[in-house]
């Protein structure tokens, strides 16, 4: 299905409430007020439907979902079994006809709705892959190249030419994933498919996704595996009984989804006037002033780190400072964090701040946190001259003869 496929509605409909901070990237998946109701049929209503009537009863699997995915991004959709994740994906992918609302998908869609083999188990892996490609309208010239790519990626060896019923569950999944991601699609709709195979194969799956992302692919990952969402998606949302009940940056969504408790911030806390964004310049001496309120007369420890998110890889530490005591008496303080010649190239980073006290056995007890892991981090926005590498270390080297 090349080109743009649309279901109903005028193009370019405004998306209300779909967290769009930066409208620069083109949106490739959009749905507005999307609902899908499955008709419930019993002995009587079946015949009424067949003879031209309508069924009264229905099960609303998806209710008024509005979301948007911009080019180059993956949206994570979290939800328990039966929350409507698969219905959402299938409706976006055009397999289900929406009951109401509009869907706009711009680009070639590669979908993995289930790891079911859409085909006969008597087929060999080779024939299955060929069939998959031809069903997706792959041209004759491309098939040859893609077939060898699939065979190589699935690592089935001689089994590639054996019937699928001789495969183990993991081998089936590998074959299916290889075929389904072989097309350099622009849009991926993936349902629970990233936990297939052994660790070695999973690593390959992730690498393939990163390659596709780097080539500008976008998509939706629907799963209950929140770690995958943290790794792949900047934005996330939670489905519950067919409704989108939460949305935002994926760590924040995951934190609320898991119901992780936040520190109570009683003994010490970051001040309410802590700015949400700090600005800094590349390779300039930087001082960040962080306001805190201490309410007890015991030592309070402060730590901070700068971390960044890369799609398909997840979060990584760039800079980290060891915990230090900053106050031992109640009162408002400003903690000054000084970074000489800020070794970060321009971009958006996550500034993570921790206040803690020493526990009974020398451990740290967290008092208050601003961190992506809790979904309340502070942004460190770095501007300046672009650099090749993400971090700039004061390294020098020369060749010795």
């Amino acid at each position, binding site marked *: 299905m090349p080109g743009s496929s649309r279901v109903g509605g005028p193009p370019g409909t405004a998306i209300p409430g779909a967290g769009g901070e930066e409208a620069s990237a083109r949106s490739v998946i959009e749905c507005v007020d999307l609902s899908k109701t499955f*008709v419930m*049929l019993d002995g009587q209503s079946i015949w009424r439907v*067949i003879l031209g009537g309508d069924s009264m009863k229905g099960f609303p699997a998806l209710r008024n979902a509005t979301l948007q995915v911009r080019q180059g991004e993956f949206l994570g959709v979290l939800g328990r079994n039966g929350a409507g994740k698969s219905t959402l994906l299938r409706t976006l992918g*055009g397999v289900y006809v929406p009951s109401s609302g509009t869907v706009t998908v711009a680009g070639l869609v590669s979908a993995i709705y289930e790891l079911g083999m859409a085909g006969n188990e008597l087929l060999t892996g080779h024939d299955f892959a060929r069939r998959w490609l031809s069903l997706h309208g792959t041209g004759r010239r491309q098939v040859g190249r893609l077939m060898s790519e699939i065979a190589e990626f699935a690592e089935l060896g001689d089994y590639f030419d054996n019937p699928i019923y001789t495969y183990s569950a993991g081998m089936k999944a590998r074959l299916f994933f290889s075929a389904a991601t072989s097309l350099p699609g622009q849009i991926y709709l993936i349902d629970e498919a990233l936990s297939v195979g052994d660790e070695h194969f999973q690593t390959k799956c992730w690498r393939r996704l990163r390659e596709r992302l780097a080539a500008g692919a976008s998509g939706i990952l629907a799963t209950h595996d929140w770690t995958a969402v943290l790794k792949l998606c900047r934005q996330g949302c939670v489905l519950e009984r067919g409704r989108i009940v939460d949305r935002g940056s994926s760590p924040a969504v995951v934190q609320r989804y898991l119901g992780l408790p936040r520190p109570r911030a009683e003994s010490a806390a970051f001040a309410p006037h802590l700015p949400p964004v700090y600005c800094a310049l590349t390779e300039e001496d930087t001082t960040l002033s962080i306001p805190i309120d201490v309410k007890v007369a015991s030592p309070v420890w402060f730590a901070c780190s700068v971390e960044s998110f890369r799609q398909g890889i997840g979060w990584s530490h760039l800079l980290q400072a060891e915990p230090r005591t900053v106050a031992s008496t109640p009162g408002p303080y400003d903690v000054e964090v000084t970074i000489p010649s800020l070794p970060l190239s321009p971009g958006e980073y996550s500034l993570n701040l921790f206040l803690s006290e020493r526990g009974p056995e020398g451990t740290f007890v967290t008092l208050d946190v601003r961190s992506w892991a809790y979904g309340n981090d502070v942004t460190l926005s770095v501007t300046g001259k672009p650099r090749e590498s993400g971090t700039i270390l004061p390294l020098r080297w020369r060749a010795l003869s």
Partner: protein
Amino acid sequence: MQILGLDRADARRLVNFLRMGLRDRFLGSTLGLVWAVANPLLMMGIFTFVFAFVFRSRLPGAETSLSFVIWLISGYGPWLAISDSLATSTGSVTGNSGLVKNLAFKTELLPIAGSLMGLVPLAVSTCYLVALLVVSGTRPSLSWLAILPVLVLQFVFITGIGLCLAAVNVFVRDTAMVLPNVLMILLFSSPIFYPLSEFPKAVQGVLQFHPFQVIAEGYRQPLLYRAWPAPWSLAYLAVLSVMAFLGGLAFFRRLKGYFDARI
């Protein structure tokens, strides 16, 4: 370009489904596609043997029993194709639930492809028939080409019915179970195994308009008597086929929105 809401990509997909259906039917068997030819051929062979050498059946006024076999197969061949088409298209949506659930495509292509599968037994039986005709001393004739419009109309007609049955079968799976029995009744209620003149006079008038009689005659007239089928019968079949096809397509498209409740 679109015809009836189907475009070029759909045409390509239709060819894919045809190829898939043909492969899947005989998948796992050692001889594979050979069976597509061998099955109808065996059937025809048995009929030839039984009616030409065991029963020695004759048409009223005919001299050899081979001419009865030729007459029989010229009607039974298309019938075989019709029953094959109907059976395949009826189960086409339910049998391909994996595709229906995982691929965004126009599901009406499945019963259409299923119906076209009947072309295989039809081709086999027609070849067999031509061989019999040549053996019995008939010279090939240009008028044989008159079966082509009948063939097209037959598939348009059967596809329309197949679309209806495929849609109903999604909700009432008994459809596929009942179908063989209904087909058997239809076979013996239409003048395929015995000529129209053997039926009671009162029934003959009605049976003339039996679609299967019209189709069978459409093959028999050109192949056996080197004559064009009666113009009224072609016109009648054309109207019937187009109505069946458009009706079937509309019916299928209305119901396919409910498929996800059952597949």
